[in-house]
């Protein structure tokens, strides 16, 4: 009897010790798919979301350690309050004040994206950061060197250990952590969403605009993500100072000449300037461009019929587009620069 009791106590002690380790394990995060939205494209099984992974990704996203001279972070061109894009710059600028050839894209609802960049050259969210990190006009750094710099940082040794269980820092872990942060940038609480969920109502003007949107825009800017994920020629003439041929650079197919990714319109009110080269400063200019097309050659077939919008229609359409603004997303306290002090961040 005594022997059995001892054994039971011993096993109990083992279980107790094991349980004390449970507390140290990561806290899984549930990725919520908004009601009636499609299934995300990202395979979460390959990169299970955790609070610790998200926090590591958030720190990396705001850290200029990713660039050659520690001056440029992801957030330099992707600011939260403007839909995670570089507002007010037609072409985004990077290291040493160098200017790129495109307007930075917005970052939201990336779990549903099948390809990345204006030309879709990047095939997976995980590997997207390699492009800006190694671009000589953006961060001009090598992935290998970033990993080396992170390995020397005590803060990141702790953060990687919390997220992945060991202090080992690899390119894979760095990229997966960045994905975790970016995947959780979900914008699904705009006025539009609330109207769809019957929680709010459009004004008469917004309702008219929504009707115009469905007739003229939604064949490419598909609801609820407001993008078809496809590449289209929207009738912009080539800027001869840039000579950006778009999707054709990737596929080498002549039909992809001047085709660019259809961007989402969520939070479009704040993501100006517009188009791949940022040539339009206002939504009115954008709509005027589409209104001026009509019977143009080489333009995607969805744009082949003239829109013929009146001035009033244009105002109504802009009113609708503003209902895609998601203030909760733009000011979500989970996403800005991680101000938590070093102690709380690294405490065991």
């Amino acid at each position, binding site marked *: 009897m005594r022997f059995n009791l001892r054994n039971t106590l011993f096993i109990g002690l083992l279980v107790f010790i094991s349980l004390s380790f449970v507390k140290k394990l990561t806290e899984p995060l549930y990725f919520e798919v908004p009601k009636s939205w499609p299934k995300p494209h990202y395979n979460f099984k390959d990169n299970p979301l955790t609070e610790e992974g998200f926090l590591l990704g958030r720190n990396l996203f705001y850290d200029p350690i990713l660039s050659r001279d520690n001056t440029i972070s992801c957030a330099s061109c992707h600011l939260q309050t403007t839909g995670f894009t570089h507002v007010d710059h037609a072409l985004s600028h990077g290291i040493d004040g160098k200017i790129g050839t495109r307007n930075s894209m917005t970052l939201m609802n990336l779990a549903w994206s099948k390809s990345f960049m204006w030309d879709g050259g990047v095939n997976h969210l995980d590997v997207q950061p*390699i492009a800006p990190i190694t671009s000589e006009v953006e961060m001009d750094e090598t992935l290998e060197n970033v990993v080396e710099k992170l390995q020397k940082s005590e803060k990141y040794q702790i953060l990687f250990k919390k997220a992945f269980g060991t202090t080992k820092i690899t390119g894979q872990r760095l990229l997966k952590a960045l994905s975790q942060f970016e995947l959780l940038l979900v914008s699904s609480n705009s006025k539009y969403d609330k109207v769809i969920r019957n929680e709010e109502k459009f004004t008469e003007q917004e309702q008219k605009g929504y009707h115009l949107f469905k007739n003229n825009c939604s064949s490419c800017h598909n609801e609820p993500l407001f993008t078809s994920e496809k590449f289209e020629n929207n009738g912009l003439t080539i800027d001869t100072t840039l000579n950006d041929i778009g999707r054709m650079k990737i596929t*080498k197919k002549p039909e992809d000449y001047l085709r660019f990714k259809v961007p989402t319109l969520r939070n479009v009110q704040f993501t100006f300037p517009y188009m791949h080269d940022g040539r339009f400063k206002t939504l009115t200019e954008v709509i005027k461009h589409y209104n001026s097309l009509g019977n143009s050659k080489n333009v995607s077939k969805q744009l082949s019929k003239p829109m013929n919008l009146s001035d009033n229609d244009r105002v109504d359409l802009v009113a609708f587009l503003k209902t895609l603004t998601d203030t909760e997303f733009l000011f979500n306290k989970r996403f800005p620069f991680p101000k938590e002090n070093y102690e709380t961040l690294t405490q065991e």
Partner: protein
Amino acid sequence: MYKTLLIGFVFNFFFFQASFAQKAADSLILKLHLKFGKDDLELGKKYVSTKKDTLQIDVFKFYISNIEIQYSDKKVYNPTNSYHLIDIENSNSLRIPIGYKNNLAIKNVFFNIGIDSTASVSGALEGDLDPTKGMYWAWQSGYINMKIEGKSSSCKTRKNEFQFHIGGYMKPSYAIRKVQLEAKNQEIDVSIDVSEFFSAIKLSKINSIMIPGKEAMELADYSIKMFKTE
């Protein structure tokens, strides 16, 4: 009782140690020998190609994947997850442990030069496939299957440099290549003769291919010729 457990544990420890050590010695190893013609390939050394180009190699890295060993009974052994980055600067990479040895005679060895399209669209991967290995493109996703860089007086380029980054995972520019080699003995010794590659191209004409496409597909075809069993 604890004593018995402890003794058992210590015994097991040594027993497993010994058995694993045994296994390592028995495992089949694919050995790679980098050559230029008859000579061992050395970085920075001057060689002359059959096209009369004087050249030196500064970088030589490539992937071998999906190794298959076919035995005399036609059965094929296919080690899982076999992606190996071969780098002339990393001598360990020239010995690929296959892990399983059969008493039957080895008939054929198959492997791919490069990375398949599935791995190319699977995001950030680990080990030899980690994008920090310098074999991943940025502006257009995908692995560089083979990297050959060096200098030649025939190249009228900056510093007389040539660069070949062969890759591409999308049809019609899918640059992976399958190699089939007949095994000459029970040890698999594969020679990779870089001179074969340079006998297919004239460096004054072709000296910089760094994107997927038609040219990369041709270079990938030439790269197969380098592989032979010794």
